[in-house]
């Protein structure tokens, strides 16, 4: 019976000229967005590989140099571009692709794609995630707003129910019919996505699992819109009312709430201005050892403590180069200050995100967007993870360089140099990205929430269908 109804709905919908136009448009946008994103991904990953090689080559071939000068010369860390960013590039364009790692400072990431774009880019860009998360629900609404209301208006509902069909069978048939059309549209696109993923050299098993989870999340998200659309159509008195209500829900979920909660979050947890942030940072930095300023009171205190510890009268009597130790002491103070301020600002952004997410009980779009970015590793957490790992590497590299100065040069020997052989042996930045286990732990709660949306909306449709009358 369900098959009969679903097939009839499928034929009926496909023969509808308005639906055909809308579906061809959405389908074409999806195909174009996948191709554009794939091209972008390939270009960026190629540049990434190239830049990574060049940067390391330059570091290893800087010639003879003082180790601490080399720490100032610095190295670059590049954030990898993951294959799934083809589907959802999330916050990537706002977060930058590389970090400059140098002595004394923790830098912000650089080369944010948004800085290279015109103001128009703020309106968003055509990515598969945009089409799937924003436009496909609109297509579902257009497909299903009249599922029941058009039959109430034409009187077909009376004829259908007089055939001895229960209202709930009719509801399930309608739902199955919408799904049949929807799957015909999205399954080929999922398969194309899978094909592109298989063709990406960077895709490992975890990336395929992420793709599977992302497909599941999208199907659950579509199910919410299918249930709500069919349910409202069963409940509403006429098609106009149903359409207005559903478009209102779509706007609320995709546009109004995401924007409104972003503003609310900023108001509740205001971020300090760049100037204020910098000033607070500089203030804390001054309150500690400065490797380049021995007259600083903290530097003097450190000197006194070091002399006392080794029982000598002057730093020249120490068994190592004091300047290497002082540099490292200053470095550790600076690391501590940067760590404190970075954590504070990250926690602030996390709290803002929590406000944003709190409105998910009204907007399944917010949930889906967050899930999709986490799975594609284009979210804030993936970026923070990269930043932290790069910072750990910076700390290690600068320490190695300072200790080289401390242990292998004489006091006040500023001519001391190391050569390329030394730089070749310095640690490499071998970034291990966020694991699947970490992501699933981070997203499980949201996935359950989305599943709750599916069940509640289905229950709503079930309730509305029981009240259907001929």
């Amino acid at each position: 019976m369900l098959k009969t109804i679903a097939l009839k709905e499928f034929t009926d919908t496909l023969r509808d000229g308005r639906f055909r136009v809308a579906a061809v448009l959405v389908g074409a946008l999806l195909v174009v967005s996948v191709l554009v994103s794939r091209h972008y991904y390939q270009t960026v990953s190629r540049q990434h590989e190239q830049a990574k090689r060049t940067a390391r080559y330059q570091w290893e071939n800087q010639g003879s140099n003082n180790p601490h000068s080399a720490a100032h010369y610095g190295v670059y860390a590049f954030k990898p571009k993951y294959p799934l960013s083809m589907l959802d590039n999330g916050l990537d364009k706002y977060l930058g692709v590389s970090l400059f790692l140098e002595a004394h400072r923790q830098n912000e990431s650089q080369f944010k794609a948004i800085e290279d774009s015109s103001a128009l880019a703020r309106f968003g860009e055509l990515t598969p995630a945009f089409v799937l998360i924003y436009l496909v629900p609109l297509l579902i609404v257009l497909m299903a707003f009249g599922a029941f209301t058009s039959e109430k208006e034409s009187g077909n509902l009376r004829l259908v129910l007089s055939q001895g069909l229960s209202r709930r069978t009719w509801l399930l048939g309608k739902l199955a019919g919408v799904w049949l059309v929807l799957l015909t549209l999205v399954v080929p696109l999922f398969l194309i996505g899978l094909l592109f993923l298989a063709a990406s050299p960077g895709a490992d098993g975890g990336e395929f699992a992420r793709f599977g989870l992302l497909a599941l999340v999208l199907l659950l998200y579509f199910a919410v819109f299918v249930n709500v659309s069919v349910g409202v159509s069963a409940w509403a008195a006429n098609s106009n009312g149903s359409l207005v209500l559903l478009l209102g829900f779509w706007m609320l979920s995709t546009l109004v709430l995401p924007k409104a909660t972003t503003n609310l979050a900023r108001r509740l947890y205001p971020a300090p201005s760049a100037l204020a942030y910098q000033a607070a940072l500089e203030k804390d930095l001054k309150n500690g050892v400065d490797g380049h300023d021995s007259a600083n009171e903290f530097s003097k205190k450190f000197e006194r403590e070091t002399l006392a510890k080794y029982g000598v009268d002057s730093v020249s009597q120490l068994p190592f180069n004091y300047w290497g130790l002082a540099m490292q002491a200053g470095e550790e103070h600076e690391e501590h200050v940067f760590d404190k301020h970075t954590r504070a600002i990250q926690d602030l952004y996390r709290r803002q995100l929590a406000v944003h997410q709190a409105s998910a009980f009204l907007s399944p779009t917010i949930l889906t967007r967050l899930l999709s970015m986490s799975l594609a590793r284009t979210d804030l957490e993936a970026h923070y993870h990269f930043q932290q790992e790069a910072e750990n590497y910076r700390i290690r590299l600068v320490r190695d360089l300072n200790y080289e100065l401390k242990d292998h040069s004489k006091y006040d020997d500023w001519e001391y140099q190391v050569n390329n052989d030394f730089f070749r042996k310095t640690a490499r930045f071998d970034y291990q990205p966020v694991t699947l286990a970490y992501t699933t732990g981070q997203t499980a709660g949201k996935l359950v929430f989305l599943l709750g949306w599916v069940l509640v909306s289905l229950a709503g449709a079930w309730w509305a269908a029981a009240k259907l009358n001929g």
Partner: protein
Amino acid sequence: MNILEAKGLSKQYKDKAALSQLDLQIKPGEIFCLLGQNGAGKTTTINLFLGFVEPSAGAAFINGVDVAKQPVQTKKDLAYIPEQVMLYPNLSGRENLSFFSQLAGFKYAKAQLGDLLTGAGLQAGAVDQRVSTYSKGMRQKVGIAIALAKKAKALLLDEPTSGLDPKASNEFSELLKKLSGQGTAVLMATHDIFRAKEVGTRVGIMREGRLVTTLNAADITASGLEKLYLEYMHD
């Protein structure tokens, strides 16, 4: 054995009695025509037999089964033709008939579907055209075919001939007589006094939710029925 039966059937809306204490029995082969103005309770009576509204008092029975208690099962013995048969405009007449028959649990071969449609008076050339190109009369014929395909014991009709041209209306009457000859019990709500006299075995006149009189169609002329009807409608 009564196929259609109402026992004290009543429907009360907030401040208005849509139907009061209707007692009615329709046997196999009988055609009962309900006459009355808009709002007299004809459509309410049909909705109660269809189970689309719950009775406030009394009960409607189809083949002895209480409609309110078994709303899905009683529909197996019942076919219904609404005043406006809209159907699905993107499907052909044959596809519409096939779909509705399958909903009722019948699966007909392609040729049988065509025979049912032409049997109901649809031109053979129109069978596979989309319903969006049909006239009201053609859609009505598909509605008749849907009812015939169900082979039901009872047929409910709500103003089935309104808006049909006299020829189509006449063909429709012939079809009803044929069905009644095969033992179908028919309940038809209509405004058409002439048609009621012509096709009905019994005629009931309704006013303000009450069945005020019932008579045998054979016992009265069309003009006599009209005179009687007007008398009842007069305050």
